[in-house]
């Protein structure tokens, strides 16, 4: 079973905002709501780095833990989704999220009663897959069409990788080995936990590898 994850390669991101545009266009996200955005660190300084940030669909999602009405759920593919019919728009998830993913629109189709809106990994919501109701509330369900998130598939430099966690991690690892730098993956540890040191990963002194 695939475990869906995002990786943003800061060495490749050119701050074009193509991912932001792709997301907005794919899901008809209204003005004032950004499910995804590009953040630039040390903007204007030589060596600045940009990363594309959205809901990371955390392994142990803080939003799920704090929701007072239990509107969140995690699919078997590891995608964190929520039911807008249950959400009361309290904003607790917004305070809990380390990535600033939850958005609270106040108008338009998404804004009815101030429901929270966030990246769905292009997996829609609890309504019937690909239905009009799902599209209006959550946007397009690309996963049920056999596709990956629009932001990752549209990324021109392939800085943003989205899909099965093992596969995207392998792709990223190959890049790092080839270029010899840029192994930092911002947000990966926060979202999916730090890698666990096992006995096989750390051979005892004198052990030959």
């Amino acid at each position: 079973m695939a475990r869906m994850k995002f990786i943003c390669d800061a060495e490749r991101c050119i701050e074009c905002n193509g991912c932001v545009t792709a997301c907005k266009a794919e899901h008809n996200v209204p003005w004032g709501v950004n499910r995804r955005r590009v953040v630039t660190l040390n903007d204007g300084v030589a060596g600045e780095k940009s990363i594309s940030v959205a809901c990371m669909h955390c392994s142990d999602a803080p939003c799920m833990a704090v929701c007072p009405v239990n509107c969140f759920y995690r699919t078997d593919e590891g995608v964190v989704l929520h039911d807008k019919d249950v959400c009361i728009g309290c904003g607790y998830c917004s305070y809990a999220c380390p990535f600033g993913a939850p958005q609270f629109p106040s108008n338009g189709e998404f804004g009815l009663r101030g429901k929270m809106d966030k990246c769905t990994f292009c997996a829609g919501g609890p309504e019937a897959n690909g239905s009009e109701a799902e599209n209006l509330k959550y946007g397009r369900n690309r996963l049920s069409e056999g596709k990956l998130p629009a932001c990752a598939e549209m990324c021109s430099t392939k800085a943003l990788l989205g899909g099965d966690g093992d596969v995207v991690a392998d792709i990223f690892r190959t890049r790092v080995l080839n270029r010899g730098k840029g192994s930092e993956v911002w947000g990966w540890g926060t979202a999916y936990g730090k890698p666990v040191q096992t006995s096989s990963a750390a051979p005892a002194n004198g052990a030959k590898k």
Partner: protein
Amino acid sequence: MIARALVLGAATALALSLAACGEKPQTMDQSARKADAEPWTVSDAANPAFRAPGWKDGDQAAWEQQIRQRNQAQNDYAR
């Protein structure tokens, strides 16, 4: 007559004052959230024109294979 009214009044007052003692259950309704379908199960409401070719409705293995293939499209070292 007056005694009857007093008894009736006392009974009403007692009933009203005890009404606050009844507490509504405050446990969360687990059934409020709707269940979601698996991504490889396509509903009749979906437009088939948007579906990526190469996999069959309801076939989990074919869907996973399709996702793996699309994942490799992001790997420019494998092209």
